[in-house]
């Protein structure tokens, strides 16, 4: 029992990180109907920016770890805002009312551009982000279960940060007039325009928010695994999550991420021995594939009904 719970918890925490990346996809898809393939590149770009800024701040003699990270985070967020603004100005605005496929191809272009630009601006080595996460695992519930449960503190804190971000986002979406405008745009572009909600500004805001989400995801992954090119492929890991949760649902992204995270870990541990291991790598995709057959709109996505 203790071991099962341990695996479950590990899965939930890993899942929280998938959710973060998936959230970026969902935010942009909802507000602009663009499947933003560049989300992974944004994660890489943001993490690179933050890693290099904090390195630079450290070198300039700022001793305090918290202060360094806070300033580096703010600077990286600033960079992501610029990226959002430029993307809206130079790409999205020109492609208004184009087919979804066209927009997808455009974000594919943005992906490679961002990956290239990130590496030429910030360098292509492996950098580390040190946000002072405790690395050693702790034992918990020793009295409840024989042997207790081993909890990875780093994962726990990461999951907490992710949960805070989600809470902040829902506050922003539910309680502010801008959030209301964002939800309005997500539901119906034309109606939103007719009551004077400026689409262009909303798009910049939503890309900014997606940029910050990418930054938080990049920061956490970066502090776990180091900032390197492979971060960009994290986006591919989040694809099954959005298929599972539905492209248009924020809670779907979160729950989808948790399901995938837990499913990966449990299947690896309990099914792995029978098929020779390595399930973790493809399990999510198979699950997503099965879901596509049964519920193509995802768990929480809107069912697309075309009037014939």
């Amino acid at each position: 029992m203790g071991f099962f719970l341990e695996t479950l918890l590990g899965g939930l925490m890993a899942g929280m990180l998938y959710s973060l990346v998936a959230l970026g996809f969902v935010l942009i898809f909802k507000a602009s109907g663009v499947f933003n393939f560049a989300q992974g590149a944004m994660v890489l770009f943001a993490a690179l920016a933050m890693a290099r800024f904090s390195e630079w701040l450290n070198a300039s003699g700022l001793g305090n770890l918290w202060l360094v990270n806070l300033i580096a985070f703010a600077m990286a967020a600033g960079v992501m805002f610029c990226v959002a603004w430029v993307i809206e100005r130079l790409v999205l605005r020109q492609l208004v009312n184009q087919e979804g496929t066209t927009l997808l191809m455009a974000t594919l272009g943005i992906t490679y551009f961002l990956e290239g630009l990130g590496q030429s601006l910030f360098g292509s080595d492996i950098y580390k982000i040190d946000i002072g996460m405790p690395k050693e695992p702790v034992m918990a519930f020793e009295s409840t279960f024989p042997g207790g449960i081993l909890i990875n503190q780093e994962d726990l804190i990461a999951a907490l940060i992710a949960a805070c971000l989600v809470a902040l986002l829902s506050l922003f979406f539910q309680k502010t007039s801008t959030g209301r405008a964002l939800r309005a745009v997500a539901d119906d572009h034309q109606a939103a325009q007719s009551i004077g909600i400026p689409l262009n500004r909303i798009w910049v805001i939503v890309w900014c928010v997606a940029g910050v989400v990418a930054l938080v995801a990049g920061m956490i992954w970066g502090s776990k695994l180091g900032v390197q090119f492979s971060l960009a492929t994290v986006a591919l890991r989040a694809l099954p999550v959005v298929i599972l949760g539905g492209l248009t649902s924020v809670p779907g992204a979160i729950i989808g991420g948790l399901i995938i995270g837990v499913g990966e870990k449990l299947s690896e541990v309990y099914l792995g021995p029978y098929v020779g291991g390595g399930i973790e790598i493809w399990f999510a995709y198979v699950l997503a594939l099965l879901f596509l057959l049964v519920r193509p709109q995802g768990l929480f996505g809107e069912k697309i009904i075309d009037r014939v």
Partner: protein
Amino acid sequence: MSKQIGDVILNVQNISLSFGGVKALSDISFDVREHEIRAIIGPNGAGKSSMLNCINGVYTPQQGSITFRGQTFSHMDSHQVAVMGVARTFQNLALFKGMSVLDNIMTGRNLRMKSNLLLQAIRFGPAQREEFEHRRKVEEIIDFLEIQAYRKTPVGQLPYGLQKRVDLGRALALEPQVLLLDEPMAGMNVEEKQDMCRFILDVNDEFGTTVVLIEHDMGVVMDISDRVVVLDYGKKIGDGTPDEVRNNPEVISAYLGTGH
């Protein structure tokens, strides 16, 4: 009726619009006076909605101009139109389905919200007061449209007739000078139509809002409008008071067909 019809507030001059080879509108001109109810009628495909979409800035006409309160535009910008005080409703409902009735109507206040994002999020001081202020206005609209019972209901769950009211409510929340209604009574039963007529007349009467409405149901339109424009195949075939239009031979033949 005691209402005072004022000067021309909206003037449409020689508007032509085509989609590829299809001429949706050719050389349409008409004016709308302040505080009046102006109807645009015509059979299906006559170009009524296209006309409204030109005024609203959804479509850009190839020729012609639109003058609103003394300013002339070759095409309107959707956002700018809303800022200038023109609101609209939609023929096929375009509500924000995931949101409650209250939130849907609150979005209509968005243009007027000034306070800082951060203050709004934590509901602090002036932001709180501002939210209350807007909420009060929205409650007035909800009372006016008699949808108090559905405040918190997601609009997607409401019956069609009520959704149409919410659509009207959202437009009213802008406190518009001109209200564009795209087939406000389409698909309604007699009772719902009567309610909607009453709301339109009350809006016009109580707030002095100028109303431009599209319908193809002649009966209803003739009862509530001050003046009527008739379109057929993208051309204007009649313009005048309901009585004048009713007796216009071209209008009669467009609606009833001509004997051959």
